[in-house]
């Protein structure tokens, strides 16, 4: 292209802009977005972004936050002091108490509050009854452990301007707290990892009284909004106060009785190019930059739980749940932060070459990631994790917020859902048809239409005449029913539930302290305030078997709409000036709301009958950090489209690394009608979601998997059976998630933290510790996939035992015809299966196991484990479980099974379940990749429990790319016993 003159270049730019605009407003994209705020429509977000713009643009910018040195003291692993915020040119300051805690786990915590508000020395406007403190109860909901102070942490250096504390394991961590201005530099092994307020974006909007200014004179004809905003834009120096005192969006006005009160901080990850986490967003696993530029977002990632309905893809816009936990990753190092704040939060992300370190001149400059966290209200409360591995991060985070509850074993099976199964007959019919087509499934679900006119805890009298009969039919094959119960309670006469909610005063209140009324599915409704202990107690009473008639021991619960969704509310949720128990504003607790509701249901399900001690199953749509302790989540209302299938994988992976791995997307896509190929591919992918549920919108055609027709029906049946045969391994992965917060499906950066090329790979994953590498097909008409291979191990095709010609760090192309889900076995692993394709997981309970040994490269070692318990009770807490470690030793030619936790045989008194498990053994051992020298061997020696016997073995030599493999039959060992097989 020739160099254009000034005019033409201007025109080119203009045209370019036009085409960019028209692309951005393609109709499919524009549908929903404007119902939700952009940063510029959110007062505190735009104020803080403007603050950042101002600070970053100025070379002389200095943060007005300084620690008063004499105020500080360090004791027992904790530094306490006061930050003085200079608020005007006269040097007036506001006192912000700061606590920096160094915890035994090696995690550091920085908490900043506001003294005047702590003491209640502020005035609220409009006679508001809201609390005066900054919200300080988030930790009561979120933090369950790991807060013991590190008494060994000690001050390493101190002077008038700074303080350095060494802490953590072997005192490898240190934090340098600078006073003027306030900032903290967290180091590991002497080098900076995470810096707080390094860019000076710390901003805590202190309380101030509203000063009524004389109304500006209106010029004729210039009274509309647009002119006003333009006027204010003309005065860039003055702070934009337009959104301090009230704010209107979409016709709803927030009265903001406390005025501006946001907290914001910049957090820099030094030398880290990738950041992950802060779900849920329909966005890549490796988070994008948010300040514009080629391929970047214009908007910050938003965390404000909302009923987004037909959400758009590749977007930082908020979704149904939020976990403000972020991990940064670079080769061989991972660090993270957890921003404990339940108010609306925005996170800006930029990446850039390091510019501040003159010492790095001449050395290769690294890319760092700078993040800017902005919350509307509450404390500034941030946890800093220094890794160094991704596993350390998930473990430490799990220590703080809790880990995935041990699930009901059935909940790992397939869930058949639809809005709606229209009658008990319909449910029973689907149940029979699944059997008829030999498709295993465990749970059938009822959406809102089962109720009597959307009154929860009731049944539609005409279509669900015999729910117990329905429940019994399901139970006859070990199956379960999940019914939906939402937090909105229909406001109607002759409905005892709403009458009690009102008379007992347990509902969320509006800003005036009266019961809040809004609209949801049933029309006019009230919302249970699950923040209130009394409300939770009452809620539990509603689930008792004799209260919620028609439910049985195999009924479980689905909590939807708990963001909460309020159809006529601002951004389809509650007004922020609503009041919850303790007079906390909804603004302060919004993102916690969904979790408190799910938590109330979880506890309700533990008290349905005296003495019944079973693990509840509760699915939620809204969630927060800590929700993993009380159930499963799904990614909300997606669409029957290929790109939604593709988007589901990074979304599920993101849930995993953010501590809430029991996650899945609606198989088939909620809205619309999936074509047969899409539905089939979705089942193949869904078989690898930790939570595996097919669901459909009420307007969608019926799509139970047996309806789709051949060849798809057979292919889907095989995908379901693949899931079921691997259930022992899935359950083992859940056990690990429960123990230490390990994700159930793991992205490449997590399993191979040294392989940089894998850091952005988010469309393939490993399942637990099985070494199974799955790469679901998510594109139409695609019959091959490229799998990125992270290491030099040997990889076998799961279905054919072919040795895949792989190279470390390279892609390998696999055939993936319709009937095949690309699945590889990484050498060096042992995993357990149950191969009899039963009708439900309950009916597999007593089946023998098949152990698969994927022999490592050069015939080396392979290892794996299996965890089993009764899948239902809490007996596992008293040792009623089997946890075996399997070790294949290529040199010793043996496979042995030992207790994975080193428990001595007989050290646990066997309860009923363990006794019955004595009858369950290992039927077969399949060894893939055995040496050629094994060919011709006919038997192996088995030793267990003092006996020695021979078992038959058949070795199939390698051929046409297929590895040699051996099958040992009728092994005859108990699964719970120590044993050894010698080949």
């Amino acid at each position, binding site marked *: 292209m020739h160099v254009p003159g000034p005019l033409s270049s201007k025109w080119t730019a203009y045209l370019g802009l036009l085409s960019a605009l028209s692309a951005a407003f393609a109709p499919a994209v524009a549908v929903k977005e404007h119902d939700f705020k952009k940063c510029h429509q959110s007062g505190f977000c735009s104020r803080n972004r403007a603050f950042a713009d101002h600070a970053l643009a100025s070379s002389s910018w200095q943060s007005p936050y300084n620690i008063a040195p004499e105020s500080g003291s360090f004791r027992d692993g904790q530094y306490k002091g006061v930050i003085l915020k200079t608020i005007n040119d006269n040097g007036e300051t506001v006192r912000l108490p700061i606590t920096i805690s160094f915890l035994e786990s090696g995690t550091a915590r920085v908490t900043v509050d506001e003294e005047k508000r702590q003491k209640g020395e502020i005035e609220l406007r409009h006679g508001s009854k809201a609390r005066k403190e900054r919200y300080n109860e988030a930790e009561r909901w979120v933090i369950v452990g790991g807060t013991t102070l590190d008494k060994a942490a000690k001050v390493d250096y101190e002077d008038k301007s700074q303080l350095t504390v060494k802490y953590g394991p072997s005192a490898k961590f240190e934090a340098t707290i600078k006073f003027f201005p306030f900032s903290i530099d967290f180091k590991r092994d002497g080098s900076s990892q995470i810096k707080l307020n390094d860019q000076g974006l710390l901003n805590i909007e202190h309380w101030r009284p509203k000063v009524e200014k004389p109304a500006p004179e209106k010029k004729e004809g210039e009274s509309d909004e647009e002119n006003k905003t333009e006027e204010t834009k003309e005065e860039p120096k003055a702070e934009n106060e337009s959104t301090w005192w009230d704010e209107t969006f979409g016709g709803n006005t927030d009265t903001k009785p406390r005025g501006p009160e946001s907290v914001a901080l910049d957090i820099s990850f030094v030398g880290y190019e990738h950041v992950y986490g802060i779900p849920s967003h329909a966005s890549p696993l490796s988070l994008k930059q948010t300040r514009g530029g080629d391929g970047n977002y214009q908007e910050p990632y938003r965390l404000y739980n909302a009923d987004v309905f037909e959400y758009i893809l590749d977007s930082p816009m908020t979704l149904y749940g939020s976990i403000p936990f972020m991990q940064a990753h670079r080769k061989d190092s991972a660090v993270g932060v957890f921003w404990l704040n339940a108010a609306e939060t925005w996170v800006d992300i930029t990446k850039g070459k390091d510019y501040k370190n003159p010492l790095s001149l001449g050395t290769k400059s690294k890319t760092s990631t700078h993040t800017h966290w902005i919350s509307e209200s509450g404390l500034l409360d941030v946890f800093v994790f220094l890794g160094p591995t991704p596993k350390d991060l998930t473990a430490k985070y799990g220590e703080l917020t809790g880990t995935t509850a041990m699930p009901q074993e059935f909940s790992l099976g397939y869930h058949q859902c639809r809005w709606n199964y229209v009658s008990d*007959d319909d449910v029973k019919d689907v149940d029979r048809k699944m059997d008829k087509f*030999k498709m295993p499934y465990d749970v059938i679900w009822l959406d809102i239409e089962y109720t009597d006119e959307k009154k929860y805890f009731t049944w539609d009298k005409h*279509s669900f005449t015999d729910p117990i009969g329905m429940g019994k039919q399901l139970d006859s094959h070990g199956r379960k029913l999940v019914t939906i119960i939402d937090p909105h309670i229909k406001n109607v006469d002759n409905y005892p539930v709403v009458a009690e909610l009102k008379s007992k005063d347990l509902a969320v209140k509006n800003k005036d302290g009266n019961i809040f009324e809004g609209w949801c599915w049933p029309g006019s409704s009230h919302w249970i305030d699950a923040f209130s202990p009394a409300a939770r107690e009452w809620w539990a009473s509603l689930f008792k078997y004799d209260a919620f008639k028609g439910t049985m021991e195999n009924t479980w619960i689905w909590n939807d709409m708990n963001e909460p*969704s309020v159809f006529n509310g601002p951004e389809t949720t509650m007004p922020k000036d609503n009041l919850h128990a303790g007079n906390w504003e909804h603004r302060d607790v919004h993102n916690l709301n969904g979790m408190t509701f799910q938590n109330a249901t979880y506890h309700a399900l533990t008290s349905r009958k005296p003495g019944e001690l079973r693990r509840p199953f509760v699915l939620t749509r809204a969630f927060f950090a800590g929700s993993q302790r009380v159930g499963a989540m799904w990614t909300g209302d997606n669409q029957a489209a290929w790109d939604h299938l593709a988007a589901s994988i990074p979304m599920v992976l993101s849930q995993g690394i953010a501590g809430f791995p029991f996650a899945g997307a609606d198989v088939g896509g909620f809205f619309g009608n999936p074509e047969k190929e899409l539905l089939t591919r979705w089942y193949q992918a869904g078989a690898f979601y930790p939570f595996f549920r097919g669901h459909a919108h009420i307007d969608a055609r019926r799509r139970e998997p047996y309806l789709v027709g051949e060849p798809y029906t*057979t292919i889907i049946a095989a995908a379901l059976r693949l899931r079921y045969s691997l259930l022992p391994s899935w359950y083992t992965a859940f056990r690990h998630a429960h123990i230490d917060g390990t994700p159930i499906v793991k992205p490449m950066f997590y399993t191979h933290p040294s392989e940089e090329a894998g850091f952005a790979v988010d469309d393939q994953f490993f399942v637990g510790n099985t070494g199974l590498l799955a790469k679901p097909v998510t594109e139409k008409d695609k019959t091959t996939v490229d799998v990125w291979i992270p290491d030099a191990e040997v990889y076998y095709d799961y279905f054919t035992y072919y040795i895949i010609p792989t190279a470390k760090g390279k892609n390998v192309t696999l055939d993936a015809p319709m009937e095949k889900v690309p699945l590889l076995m990484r050498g060096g692993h042992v995993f357990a299966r149950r191969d*009899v394709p039963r009708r439900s997981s309950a009916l597999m309970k*007593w089946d023998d196991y098949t152990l698969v040994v994927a022999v490592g490269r050069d015939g080396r070692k392979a290892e794996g484990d299996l965890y089993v318990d009764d899948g239902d009770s809490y007996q596992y807490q008293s040792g009623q479980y089997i946890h075996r470690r399997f070790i294949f030793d290529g040199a010793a030619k043996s496979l042995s099974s030992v207790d994975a936790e080193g428990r001595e045989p007989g050290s646990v008194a066997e309860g009923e379940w363990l006794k019955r498990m004595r009858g369950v053994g290992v*039927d077969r051992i399949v060894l893939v990749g055995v040496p050629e020298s094994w060919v011709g061997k006919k038997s192996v020696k088995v030793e267990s429990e003092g006996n020695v016997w021979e078992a038959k073995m058949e070795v199939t030599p390698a051929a046409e790319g297929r590895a040699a493999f051996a099958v040992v039959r*009728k092994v005859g060992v108990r699964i719970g016993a120590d044993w050894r097989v010698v080949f």
Partner: protein
Amino acid sequence: MRRTGALALLSALAHSTLAAAESLPRGVGPEFAKFYTSKSTFTCIGNPSIILEPSQVNDDSCDCPDGSDEPGTAACAHIDPLSPEQPLPGSLTGTTNATNALPGFWCSNAGHVGSYIPFLYVNDGVCDYELCCDGSDESAHVGGVQCENRCDAIGKDHRRLEEERRQNKERSAKRRRTLVKEAREQRRRVEAKLGALKAELEGLEHKKADLQKRYEDIERSERNSMVKVKGQGGKLEILVNLAKNRISELRNALDKVLDQRDDLQDRVEQLEEILTKLKDEYNPNFNDEGVKAAVKSWEDYAAGQAGETKSDNLPDEDIMEMLKEDGETFGINWAEFESSDASDVDVVYNWEAYLPRPVNDFIREKINALRIWAMDNGILADNRSGANSESRQLTAAREALEAAKGDILSKTRSLEEQQRDLEKDYGPGDIFRALKGKCISSDVGEYEYELCWIDRTTQKSKKGHGNTNMGNFVRIDKDMADEEERADGKSLGKGERMVLRYENGQGCWNGPNRRTDVWLACAETDELWRVSESEKCVYRMEVGTPAACEDLQEPGPSVKDEL
């Protein structure tokens, strides 16, 4: 004697099968017994090269690539085309994606009916009594399950039910025969009617031809007398007649318009009610642009209605007044005018009287001929059609002809209708002809559902939201039903069933037109058992009717199909 002999033989047979079964491995069906008789070895059925020790049969570990060594356990259940594939040397496909040599686990179910059940049901801890009443599928007692033998009770129950069903079937078949007869009778009636119509039509054609001729004759002669024959009465009388007719026409029209208005008013009210409900109950969260736009325009419309003062509509009383028939005391007293004998029209022709007769005659003849010629050639307007200038005789002839023509037309139409009806598919043996025009209905919640045979299906709201057409009858199909038998017999059961397709019902919001599949099962009486909307706007009715019964052989000589 023979009877007891047969019985003895039967019990001997039963005994011997029992004896054989005892020596056979568990789960082996009679037709496979021969493979399991050897005491020293077992040869995989599909892989004769693989020879196992007898102890490997039913040892709960799969050894044969065709699964035949485990007839009594689930150990080979993974050898199945539906299972995730794994290499399996020796199987037909080389993988587990193969077919088991055995059809399943054989439950002999002594005292009931023996059957195969899928291997995957074996030893899963569930007593599948429906298929395996002897409980032999749970021999391993996994998880402590004990399945007692329930074949005595289940067999007895089964036989009782079978007997009931058989009787039911017979009764229903009887009913069906009655229906067939009715249908045949109706068909005969249609055919008879058709015959009558044809004959009648023939007659009518003749009559028409006669009338045509008569009319033409009269008309020709009238043309001649036309000029001299005057209309009845004078100008005024004609005017009065015209005015009277016109007014009565207008009155009728007004009456009709009024009815239409009321009708429309009702519909508007219904629509407004629907829209109000929509506005109140729609979910703004759906963000359906269509719905939103509709609600918005409804709001605008409603606001406009409220603001608008009622335009000065003609009060209904006034209209009612106008609609009253005229009479002596009300409106126009037509009689007054009709009786007037002023005949000023006559004057026009009176000049002839002044001419000498021959001249007069000559001129009249010439003029008449000229007029007729001119009229025939379109030069002069033919005013013969003016009703009042026509003679009564001609009018009568014309009317008779037209009546005959109309008669022919309507008869032809009804002939065609009957013919179409005869050709229409009324199902096997024309059976639905007997049900045509009949409806059955069922209460489900706030709706009553109605099925009108070979006509339409309807949803009627009990809350007065009007009726919804769920589809109009299109055709009769066959489809496979797969439903559980119910104790009350009201079930489609399993097998091929007739399905009446009703399509193109009322359109759904943002969706397709409603349609209904009416599944038919044999029953003694017509009954709408169940209605369900398994997906939006697609309904399914399950209906019992003798019309769906099997055509059991009727006693006596079979009747020739009349089609």
